[in-house]
């Protein structure tokens, strides 16, 4: 039903999807790439942050006079040195702007900043923290959403009844009617853990405020424009007086596009001292005082017919919001939407409640709520198939989205390669033959967005913009606001520009990560850059090319039925490719023709009339082969298979890297990255005790790329690299189910959980035998 042939009107390509080295590669393999962590400015001071030891307390008094007596201490700041602005990334909604970063009157989680010191060395700043006396009045605290929502729970933010921070409702179709049609209904409760972003570069910032009243901020972030806008709000300055620089960023994964303590405190200290101030978080600070993947409690009820046709689903979700909103409000929305993916439901209803607690705030992290949604959905679907004795792949296939499908009131699916993904996964499973006794395979399906269409930040600018400037020698300057964080966006944009303009990747210099010189762009989150910034770059490049070709047409004297093009820096008539001139020669002539002005192309993109969520959706299947030690419950991943539809690939090497990397992070979420808290305190905030995938745990990653053509994407491209964080945890859960018949309802799955589940099962089996 949903088979089709890919026809990409832009082919053949000269640059796109060829083997291109990352354009930042040489800087990165020679140690030349300079991150915020490496920035050192003349006269720079070092800052350190004093943090709350209490999960919930009033700040009565802060006395830092003793700290100021220490030689080398230059300044101490507290909430009283700030404007006290409650900020948040959901700028359009005042209620959701709830975080002061340096709170004035009370702290709401362990690790929240209380004061910050600037000193001539980091060591002195650290020592000074011990000499700041803070008088607190402890308040009763609450840590879990299902406790915090109770009537008598302590109030964390004034005016939020039952600590409910945000609610979300999504519904389509006649849900009750659809449930009535169902012949089999299953309901389950699940618990999804948090996860640390664990960027290799911890949060870091260097702020330099000068007497002109302007500030320059080097920061490790995913959206310089957001940082600029948010800082303008909290400092009471104009955006244009704030310059944010972030050339190299040591990872983001959804954790670096909100204001953090490093940026805010370094700026406040610099404004007090008129000196550059650098703050780098320790690894422990990065764990306990940033934000995390949102932990969720999921109830999901699914009704199907006996032949496996999906009818209806309803879900109720309570998320542990932690102390502040951050991007958690968006995660609450997206988890509800992607819990329906990639399937067709006659009726679907979701109610989500984000609940404040006195813990580390939760937010977006790669997958943006969808890994939690898939952990629950894809396991429950596997269990339903088993309950009904149906083939789990075929049951998924017959209910899946297809090209042209409309998610009622939400989205139109313009491209969808999931059908081929099922074929690839089945082929991989067949190739395994009969598995040894201690091994099993699990699979999971999902889909993901290519950038959100929402503008809760209230940006007056286009979502993405690009400027292409052609130099007299044929080299090209590409200015973009999209942010390189290691995902390869600079290279992707250079490839799109080179393809569109007809030059080589090496001719294009990409300028990004500087709000003074690059156009505004919402930044690197929600898998938006390839599609949105990519469209802006393509448009800007085509604009420049059109201007250049006008001069070529004027000179050529060709009949107008012949059209000209530029490929491989050669300007030619398409019908007579041997006739032409070099790109450089044309640029020189065109520049003279414009009275010496350089050729400048401009492009922008904002999605319109694309539904509620995203302009395009990627689709994928993940398979894992797992070995489990029955005695210890220890899980080992032996092999993996990814079938992935990202539309037209732009950068082959980058795509493979994104998929392998997403898989490893997703696998970590499934069975390793446990974040336990006791009374609001994280118990393992270091890399010895917080386990994640290391080289020896990573299995081979087989990848099948399913090419489709996405009409809204640049050259047909859509999301890759975030969506694949979604399915893996459930695939591991399904492998456990197929091995032992036990249903794991909490992730990450720790060895003791498997051991306990097997014990329980053995007891139950014993009971059953007795009867």
């Amino acid at each position: 039903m949903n088979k089709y042939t890919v026809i990409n009107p832009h082919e053949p390509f000269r640059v796109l999807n060829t083997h291109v080295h990352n354009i930042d590669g040489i800087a990165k393999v020679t140690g030349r790439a300079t991150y915020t962590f490496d920035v050192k400015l003349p006269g720079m001071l070092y800052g350190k942050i004093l943090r709350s030891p209490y999960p919930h307390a009033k700040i009565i008094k802060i006395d830092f006079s003793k700290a100021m007596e220490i030689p080398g201490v230059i300044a101490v700041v507290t909430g009283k040195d700030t404007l006290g602005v409650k900020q948040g990334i959901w700028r359009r909604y005042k209620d959701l702007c709830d975080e002061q970063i340096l709170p004035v009157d009370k702290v709401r989680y362990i690790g929240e900043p209380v004061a910050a010191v600037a000193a001539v060395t980091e060591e002195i700043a650290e020592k000074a923290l011990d000499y700041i006396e803070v008088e607190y009045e402890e308040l009763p605290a609450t840590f879990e959403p299902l406790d915090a929502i109770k009537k008598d729970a302590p109030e964390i933010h004034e005016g939020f009844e039952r600590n409910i921070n945000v609610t979300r409702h999504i519904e389509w179709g006649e849900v009750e009617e659809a449930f009535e049609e169902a012949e089999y209904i299953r309901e389950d409760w699940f618990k999804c853990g948090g996860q640390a972003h664990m960027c290799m570069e911890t949060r870091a910032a260097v702020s330099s405020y000068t007497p002109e009243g302007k500030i320059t901020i080097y920061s490790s972030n995913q959206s310089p424009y957001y940082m600029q806008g948010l800082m303008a709000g909290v400092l009471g300055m104009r955006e244009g007086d704030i310059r944010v620089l972030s050339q190299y960023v040591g990872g983001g994964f959804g954790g670096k596009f909100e204001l953090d303590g490093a940026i805010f405190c370094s700026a406040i200290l610099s404004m007090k001292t008129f000196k550059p101030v650098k703050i780098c978080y320790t690894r422990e600070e990065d764990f306990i005082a940033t934000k995390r993947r949102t932990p969720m409690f999921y109830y999901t009820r699914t009704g199907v017919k006996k032949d496996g046709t999906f009818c209806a689903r309803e879900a109720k979700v309570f998320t542990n919001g932690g102390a502040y909103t951050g991007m958690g409000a968006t995660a609450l929305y997206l988890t509800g939407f992607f819990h329906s993916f990639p399937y067709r439901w006659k009726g679907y209803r979701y109610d989500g409640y984000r609940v404040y607690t006195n813990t580390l705030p939760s937010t977006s992290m790669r997958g943006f709520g969808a890994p939690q949604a898939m952990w629950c959905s894809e396991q429950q679907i596997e269990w339903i198939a088993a309950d009904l004795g149906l083939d789990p792949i075929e049951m998924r296939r017959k209910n899946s989205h297809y090209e042209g499908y409309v998610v009622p009131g939400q989205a139109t699916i313009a491209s969808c390669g999931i059908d081929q993904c099922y074929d690839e996964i089945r082929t991989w499973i067949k190739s395994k033959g009969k598995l040894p006794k201690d091994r099993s395979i699990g699979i999971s399906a999902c889909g993901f967005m290519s950038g959100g269409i929402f503008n809760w930040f209230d940006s007056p600018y286009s979502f993405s913009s690009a400027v292409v400037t052609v130099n007299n020698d044929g080299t090209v300057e590409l200015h973009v606001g999209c942010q390189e964080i290691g995902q390869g966006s600079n290279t992707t944009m250079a490839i799109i520009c080179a393809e569109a303009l007809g030059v080589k990747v090496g001719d294009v210099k990409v300028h990004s990560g500087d709000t003074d010189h690059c156009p505004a762009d919402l930044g690197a989150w929600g898998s938006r850059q390839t599609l949105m910034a990519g469209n802006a770059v393509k448009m800007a490049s085509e604009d420049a090319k059109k201007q250049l070709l006008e001069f070529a047409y004027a000179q050529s004297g060709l009949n107008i039925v012949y059209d000209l093009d530029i490929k491989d820096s050669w300007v030619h008539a398409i019908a007579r490719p041997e006739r032409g001139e070099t790109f450089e020669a044309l640029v020189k002539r065109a520049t003279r023709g414009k009275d010496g002005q350089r050729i400048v192309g401009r492009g922008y993109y904002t999605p319109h009339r694309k539904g509620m969520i995203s302009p395009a959706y990627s689709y994928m299947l993940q398979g894992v082969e797992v070995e489990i030690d029955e005695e210890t419950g220890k899980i080992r991943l032996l092999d993996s298979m990814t079938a992935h539809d990202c539309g037209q690939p732009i950068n082959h090497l980058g795509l493979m890297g994104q998929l392998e990397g997403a898989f490893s992070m997703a696998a970590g979420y499934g069975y390793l990255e446990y974040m336990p808290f006791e009374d609001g305190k994280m118990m393992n905030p270091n890399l010895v005790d917080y386990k994640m995938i290391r080289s020896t745990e990573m299995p081979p990653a087989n990848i099948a790329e399913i090419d489709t053509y996405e009409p809204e994407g640049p050259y047909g491209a859509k999301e890759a690299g975030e969506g694949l964080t979604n399915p893996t945890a459930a695939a591991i859960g399904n492998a456990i189910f197929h091995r032992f018949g036990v249903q794991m309802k909490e992730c990450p799955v720790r060895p003791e959980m498997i051991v306990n589940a097997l014990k329980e099962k053995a007891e139950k089996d014993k009971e059953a035998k007795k009867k």
Partner: protein
Amino acid sequence: MEKKLITLIVNDIEYELYINPKTLLVEAIRDHIGLTGTKRGCETVSCGACTVTIDDMAVKSCSVLAIQVDGRRITTSEGLEKNGVLAPIQKAFLDEGSYQCGFCTSGMLMSSEAFLKETKKPTEEQIKEAIEGNICRCTGYNSIVRAIAAVAKGKYAEVKS
């Protein structure tokens, strides 16, 4: 504590440093000498971002004091390239896309370099074990393993004329 005068030979250049004996090697390299290619990602000797080689052996430079390696030859990622020519492992990292954000890359390169010097025909398991002490949050490691294997197989060996 009384400061000490030591000599570190970093990337074939001798640096004389007058430093506090508590200074870690990573601090000497980054803060005193100013070579910032070597990174730090933790305080618990867990992440490997600060890996350098000392006399061809991979060492996490946050785990030794600078004075302990007085007079020794140290190589950082900046020292792999010679006169603008990249080392085989650097070329392999480019070809395989063995880095993304790049923050672990310097340490990863140095662990790889030391391993390749001591192990001539490594198995995949050996390669994985050699970089087990280096965390990479971006790549999922396989592309790094492929790069090391390619160098070990002689893909980047210089053609001797």
